[in-house]
């Protein structure tokens, strides 16, 4: 049985949560790595492990445990990320109000956000790579439209450091594709636009505005936000043989908001 690790999958209404459920349907054994232990009860068919992805030793322990238990890793999906709700301390807090750009964020913001969004992917990929290499497999990372176009000043619910970290994830995807291709490990990335996740709902509840962090909803050519379902289906397709000749690629899923 193939084994998948999904980071950032415990919160309900998140892309990662839906990815975990869909990988189960693909017949895989799914390991969920997350700090949000409250969400583990809703993922009974998965093996949930408490993991702080910003801490390399925590990530290494999680991967070691997964391999110890199941003997192999075929798929790694790095869904963890965000500008808030990414440390144990603020997991359940509301998004901070106000725009946090590169020129006005705190150094602490920078370090926390880059750690959760970029370091985390590096740690997980590095720990899983020796196991993926054995029989081949796939890594899918989740970037953001923010990596393409930035977060416009005035926007709330996201941040400048997030945009930069997600651009880093795209670069990391390319580098890993080069390093792992010869072992039959494909590495790709999805860059979602505005997706109707729990996180978006919390931002909108707070701001009362019909806009995601990246801009007003009315500016989306497809005239709707994306769903967690379709975003997760895309991520899962990048884990399967449907995309057997794709590697190093970022697929934009943004309703034609930004055509790269």
């Amino acid at each position, binding site marked *: 049985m193939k084994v998948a690790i999904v980071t950032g999958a415990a919160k309900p209404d998140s892309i990662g949560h839906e990815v975990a459920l869909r990988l189960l349907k693909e017949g895989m054994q799914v390991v969920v790595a997350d700090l949000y232990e409250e969400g583990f009860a809703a993922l009974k068919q998965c093996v949930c492990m408490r993991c702080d992805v910003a801490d390399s030793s925590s990530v290494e322990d999680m991967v070691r445990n997964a391999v110890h238990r199941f003997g192999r890793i075929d798929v790694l999906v790095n869904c963890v990320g965000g500008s808030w709700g990414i440390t144990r301390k603020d997991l359940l807090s509301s998004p901070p109000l106000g725009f946090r750009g590169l020129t006005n964020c705190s150094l602490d913001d920078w370090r926390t956000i880059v750690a959760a969004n970029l370091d985390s992917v590096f740690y997980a990929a590095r720990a899983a790579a020796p196991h993926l290499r054995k029989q081949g497999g796939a890594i899918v990372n989740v970037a953001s439209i923010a990596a393409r176009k930035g977060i416009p000043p005035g926007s709330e619910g996201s941040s400048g450091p997030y945009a930069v970290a997600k651009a880093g994830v795209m670069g990391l995807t390319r580098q890993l594709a080069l390093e792992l291709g010869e072992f039959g490990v494909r590495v790709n990335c999805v860059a979602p636009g505005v997706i109707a996740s729990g996180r978006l709902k919390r931002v909108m509840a707070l701001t009362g505005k019909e806009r995601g962090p990246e801009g007003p909803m009315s500016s989306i050519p497809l005239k709707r936000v994306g769903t967690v379902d379709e975003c997760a289906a895309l991520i899962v397709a990048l884990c399967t043989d449907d*995309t057997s000749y794709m590697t190093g690629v970022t697929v934009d899923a943004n309703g034609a908001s930004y055509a790269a």
Partner: protein
Amino acid sequence: MPLEGLKGRKALVTGAASGIGASIVERLKREDVQVFATDIHATHEVIVADLTDADDVEKLSARVGAPDFLINVAGGPVAPTRQQTLPDLPSKALLLEDLDEKQWASVIAANLTTAFLVCREFAPRMKARKFGRIVNFASIAARRGSDRVGVHYAAAKGGIIGLTKTLALELGPHNVTVNAIAPGFIKTPRIEAADWGNASAAFLESLPLRRAGTPDDIAGVVAMLCSDAGGYVSGATLDVNGGWYFGP
């Protein structure tokens, strides 16, 4: 688990007589999609049409009706004609000074005008039904440039990317997505028959995935874009090339 959102839909695949197009037809049929196939090259399964000719496109549409998926594969580095419907590929690189105006115009017509005419014919029906998925075919020649296929083909395929982005904006409000696939080195029977098919071992070894692509590698991505997985993907060009070129 099969891809969701394909079963029972109707598709039109152009350039469907051989190679990538034929593989897409097979794949979509396996997903229980009702497939109409067209090509200038007659096989027992295709509706024969010259898609550079607006009259032929109109006749085609009378037979096909309103497809949910439109897959524009028709094209190639050598333009087919009604007399020579599956032309051989050249054996050496096409350089700028090798090309005359006629070749330029015919390759632009075969690759770009066909997509324009077919989209113009079928997009209004998708708009009316508030659903559609259009997949156009660009090429790595448009993404990174090419040292063999010639500027006419690269330019036509670059045109496909502009057409794709613009139609994504125009048709988005009608729930029609428009994307392009840019294949890399795909070993179709026709490419294999040409000297172009003898890609050096060194070249293939230089690719991250260490191999040439197959038509089935491309058909899977088409199926993905037509399925629910492609629901929020629009205006995108997907590079399917084994890591040869990562895109912008």
